[in-house]
């Protein structure tokens, strides 16, 4: 059953998050927090020798939207350069706030477009973008991220 933002992929990822669990040899650890919902995640990032993202894992607790977004982000970021991740972050944010129509305009979001209807739920946009804000913060060298 699907309603609003809760389509099959999002509910599936929220119940079966990918790359979930701590990473022992992470190059970067960063916490992301959404005070509104109490969503709280920690992301672990391993970089490859060529500077691309080798892998991303996460732990923590959040709502279905933030958990699914984190899960799908860890898949999407794998093997990407920092510039490519930055592009995804910007496009995801624009899609979530209704500034990018993924059905009409070119983009690199791929499977991440399952979040496109989040723009119709303004109070939930922060849930979807929290993982991306956190990854972005890690890329620019910050220690924590918050959507407030």
């Amino acid at each position: 059953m699907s309603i609003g933002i809760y389509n099959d992929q999002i509910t599936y990822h929220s119940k079966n998050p990918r790359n979930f669990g701590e990473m022992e040899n992470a190059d970067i650890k960063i916490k992301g927090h959404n005070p509104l919902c109490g969503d709280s995640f920690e992301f672990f990032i391993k970089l490859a020798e060529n500077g691309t993202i080798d892998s991303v894992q996460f732990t923590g607790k959040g709502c279905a939207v933030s958990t699914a977004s984190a899960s799908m982000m860890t898949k999407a970021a794998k093997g990407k350069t920092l510039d490519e991740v930055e592009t995804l972050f910007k496009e995801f944010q624009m899609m979530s706030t209704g500034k990018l129509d993924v059905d009409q305009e070119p983009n690199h979001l791929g499977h991440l477009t399952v979040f496109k209807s989040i723009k119709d739920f303004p109070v939930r946009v922060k849930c979807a973008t929290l993982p991306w804000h956190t990854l972005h913060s890690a890329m620019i060298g910050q220690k924590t991220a918050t959507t407030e």
Partner: protein
Amino acid sequence: MNTLLTNDLDIAKVREEFPILSRQVHGKPLVFLDNGASSQMPRSVQERIRLYHSNEHANVHRGVHYLSQTATDSYEKARVTVQNFIHAKHEEEIIWTSGTTDAINTVAASLAQFYFKEGDEILLTEMEHHANIVSWQIHAVSKGVKIKVIPVLDNGELDLDAFENLLTDKVKLVSLVHISNVLGTVNPVKFVIDRAHEKGIPVLVDGAQSTPHSKIDVQHLDCDFFVFSAHKMYGPTGVGVLYGKKEWLSKMPPVRGGGDMIMEVSFEKTTYNELPYKFEAGTPNISGAIGLGAAIEFIQSIGLEKMAAHEHDLLVYATSIIEPMQGISILGTAKEKASIISLIMDEIHPHDVGTILDMEGIAVRAGHHCAQPLMTRFGIPATSRASFAVYNTKEEIDALVQGLLKVQQIFA
């Protein structure tokens, strides 16, 4: 629709008084169950506010002209309506504020100026709204005053044994919520006040959730302060009341300077106005005060006891259906409970519950309800809360239950 007739109360007729209840949300009939945050306004209150703006508006206590006097009369009449509603002894014990939060802040700021000393303690409860925590932190903790907390038991009742132990000679104020906005617990405020008074300790009661549902008699309670908002009791936003015993208010310094709160001003010295104006600096929310007066008249036209009986029926009905449901638990099962149900669904975040119910036209509150210490106490980030008002029906509770089943199906 014979279920609309309960306790001799014609709910269909009551609902007609609330135009907003006939609208749709996301293509579904609105089921408004967020009354604990803000209840809807009946036609009579809307009409009274409109009449003020179209026929009586001017500034109060200022002009010699006709309209200023008309506005002042309506505004002061509302004060008497409030006085009678909460059974205060004196009219001047009713201070207009912008709401419950403003009222608590006013007491905190004033007491901090002349009453609290370093090492004193303020006794709160674990189920307080942030308004009754942060106000004391801002105004009193900076003066070296400590905050002590009465714990909450697993069923959502106050730990009264702990209260008696915490009530030491260091305590200079007890400030507690009458009805918890999360748990629905009706606290034994009379007992708390009597115990505190045995030691000469004043008590503030936060009545934000109790004024719409229970008879308030501040003289019987003997509370020193009682605070509440209009918008949770069918009135407008931006207006509320600080009741204080005259003996306290007379010795308390004002915390805001401005027009109306003065007797005489020079650059060297200002003498303050008498009660209640001493605490009412600046042009007040005139239409809001008049609107609150109209909201009280609406409540009285139905009868608070009939309203409370209907809301209790709804609580019992909703609890009897939701409590046995698999994967759902109710937070707060106090013996004395108001018509508030906080839900926790296994493995499903309250915000997801709230969003899915919203798609069904059902408005509930999802979040920490401005009571984060209470969420921490129960080890949860948030709850989904349904809170009932006089216009809610058993059919609406059935819709809520269907909505909850849908939430479970989506995450099944």
